[in-house]
């Protein structure tokens, strides 16, 4: 069911009085290209049609009843004889809704290919991923998918589908613009009268069968997705064309990479995660990890693990992850676990270096705390654990001992210890902090300046 219609009216101009004498239905669009965004409900549609123009004034009527097209975005460009065709104005006539009229002055007559573009809402896409860990959890097969959904009110047949990764700045929602009574609103009344959006209806069975049959005739190979960067965006172009009737979605595979090296990373930070250890899968979007060709759009990853040679799977968890630029590290949060344990224990409390004011009140002192941290890996795979400790003030010193593979001062009140453990092992380390209180911070400041 086509809802976007274009008619060509040839207007005879006689003595300044315009008379409509002909009304021609245009041939259907020859090609259509959809560029679908996911950061906003926004799609750039571009269709080509062949107009038959007469020399002189022509008017093209374009209507879009029951669609979600933003009329302020309508543009028509001639693709041939551009110098001889002047698209003078676009008129939204009074007391008619969802209709625009292009007044075209042509110095040529005959068929002219034109391109009509507009923004519409109702089409969307999202990325999602499936990860399958090897049994030893050192590598992961990563499959990326794109799911395109059409709720635009318009059936798009044989459309070239492109999806855009990136965050676009919008002033108005396209769906809101599409519902306006007057395309540009009206002076004096800022608020347009809203109207319910076109609700996609469920297709009749016959159409569903058609679609299935069409799918059955399609070549039995997964389509390729061509990826390229443009400005701050990434453009994924799906090979060939797609037919997505209104109300339908399509899943397409965007990549499939086997054996991406991954690190089982666990994190402990009491202030952020509580007592539980959080499990992360860590890798990088680079060539070392067999990736790095394009950014990875944000989406949900479901992680499975191969459990035997018969390709049976266990479900490990899921993580939504953010957009990963090329070259950046990825840390996927799979949630809290019980099989890796981090136990910080406060082993000793002391205070020292007391200072007194003129009233003999305590004006400053040092709090000295000794912590023992036990890290246990009860799993049979090697893991890496990051333990973050926060202090309540910026005046501190630290000493540490024991099995630590890394230590870093993150910022003025945060440190991070890194411990690597083989399967079924445990490590212990100790650290002692001296926290300077009251006027003792002055001594600290003098010393560290």
């Amino acid at each position, binding site marked *: 069911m086509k809802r976007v219609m274009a008619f060509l009216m040839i207007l005879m101009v006689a003595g300044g009085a315009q008379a409509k004498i002909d009304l021609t239905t245009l041939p259907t669009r020859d090609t259509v*290209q959809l*560029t679908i*965004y996911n950061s906003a409900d*926004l799609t*750039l549609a*571009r269709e080509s049609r062949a107009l038959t123009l007469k020399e002189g004034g022509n008017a093209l009527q374009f209507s879009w009843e029951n669609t979600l097209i933003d009329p*302020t*975005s309508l*543009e028509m460009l001639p693709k041939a004889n551009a110098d001889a065709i002047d*698209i*003078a*104005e*676009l*008129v*939204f*006539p*009074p007391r008619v809704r969802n209709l625009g009229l292009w007044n075209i002055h042509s110095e040529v007559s005959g068929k002219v290919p034109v391109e009509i573009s507009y*923004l519409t809402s109702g089409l969307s896409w999202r990325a999602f991923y499936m990860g399958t860990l090897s049994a030893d959890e050192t590598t992961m097969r990563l499959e990326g998918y794109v799911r395109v959904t059409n709720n635009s009110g318009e059936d798009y047949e044989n459309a070239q589908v*492109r999806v*855009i990764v*990136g*965050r*676009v*700045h*919008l*002033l108005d929602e396209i769906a809101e613009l599409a519902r306006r009574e*007057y395309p*540009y*609103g*009206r*002076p*004096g009344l800022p608020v347009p009268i809203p109207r319910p959006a076109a609700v996609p209806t469920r297709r009749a069975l016959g159409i569903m069968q058609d679609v299935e049959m069409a799918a059955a005739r399609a070549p039995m190979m997964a389509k390729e997705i061509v990826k390229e*960067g*443009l*400005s*701050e965006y990434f*453009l994924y172009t799906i090979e060939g064309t797609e037919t997505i009737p209104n109300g339908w979605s399509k899943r397409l595979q965007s990549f499939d990479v086997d054996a991406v090296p991954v690190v089982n990373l666990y994190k402990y930070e009491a202030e952020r995660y509580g007592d539980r250890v959080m499990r992360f899968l860590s890798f990088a979007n*680079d*060539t070392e990890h067999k990736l790095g060709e394009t*950014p990875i759009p*944000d989406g949900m990853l479901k992680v499975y693990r191969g459990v035997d040679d018969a390709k049976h799977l266990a479900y490990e968890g899921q*993580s939504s992850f*953010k*957009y990963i*630029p*090329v*070259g*950046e590290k990825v840390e996927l*949060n799979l949630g809290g676990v019980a099989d890796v344990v981090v136990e910080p224990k406060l082993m000793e409390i002391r205070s020292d270096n007391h200072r007194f004011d003129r009233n003999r009140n305590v*004006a400053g002192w040092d709090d000295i705390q000794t912590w023992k941290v036990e890290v246990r890996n009860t799993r049979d795979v090697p893991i890496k654990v990051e333990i973050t400790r926060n202090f309540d003030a*910026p005046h501190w010193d630290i000493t540490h001992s024991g099995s630590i593979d890394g230590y870093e*001062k*993150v*910022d*003025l009140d945060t440190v991070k210890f890194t411990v690597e453990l083989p399967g079924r092992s445990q490590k212990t380390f100790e650290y002692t902090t001296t926290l300077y209180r009251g006027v003792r*911070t*002055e001594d*600290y*400041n003098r010393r560290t*300046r």
Partner: protein
Amino acid sequence: MNAKRLILSATIALLLAGPMAQARIKLVALPERAATIIRLDNPNATLIEEERVLTLQQGLNQVDFSWKGVQIDEDSIRLEVLDHPDAVNLLSVSYPPGESALVWEISSGGDFAETVRISYLLGNIDRLITYRAVADKAETQVDLRSYVILRNFSGEDFDHARILLDYGEAFEQGIDHEETKQVLFLKAPTVPIRKIWTFDAAKLPWDPQRLDNQNVGIPVSYRIVNDTASGLGRFAMWGGKARLFQDDGRSSTIFLGEDNAPLVPVGEKMELYIGDSRDIVVTQRKMRDVQINLRKNDSDRVVLYDTDEIITATIENFKDSPATLTMIQHIEGQWDMEKCNLPYTKKDASTLEFEIELPARTDAGPGVQELTMHYRRRNVRN
């Protein structure tokens, strides 16, 4: 629904004996509009100028001007006599009670078919400006077009009018009540642009690792200068919605984003925020913040101190092309910079602006710049 709502009727008033008892007799013969001008140069109000021919008789004439269904500012109505300004005089203007009308009392030195110009401010008719720009693939220039959107919801149909903006050619256009027209009026095919990434430390999160699975988008803008080098510079560019597209190199475009362009006088810059980059990542951290130079009162309480602060920022460019990041840092109050490894300009007392050149990403990793800013805030009172 094509009724004229502005009614002009000329009345020849016979001056009767009764000094105040003048009966207004409206004549049906309406002088038709001749030339009509719609002036849209003031964004707050629209001025209509229309010429009509009044049939005046020697002596005193009354001309009624009334309207219904339209919004006219009564105080704005003016009458200009064009043919015989010396012989024809407007004596008075009166407003009849309870009517949207006024009565001009005109004295005429002869029987004239007099052309007059009536002007008034008409409500609910205006114009918007929109911009549509298509950037080239390299993002060095845009093909800029500007459209004027005429919106007539005044209640009056204008079959034929000269439409004047505050610049550009006047054009002939008819516009009916409730009609909207989009007319192209500016084409500048090669306007140079500069692409700008901006990190403002007061507006964006400092440490992306502290956010759970969220990207920090660095705002991206295009800068256009309204000057002759840009193929512009002839007049101020009006504010309006600007939509930006980019040529994808495959005879199609992608939509980059949209922003409200402000009014840009000649010689000034227009900055259009199009979207956010997630390929430039800023990780900013405070590494030191302590009080020094403590000054105490008799009770040993600190009353005045300086601070000693260190801020570091790592800027990573994951793009395959170099970029210039504008970084804005804020230090409140009185302060001295002890050491800063990158040059900056002081925009005002508390704002520092860095222009940081970021190399492109290589196989070894992102292009990285490090900023270390060591400063002391002075004379902070407790």
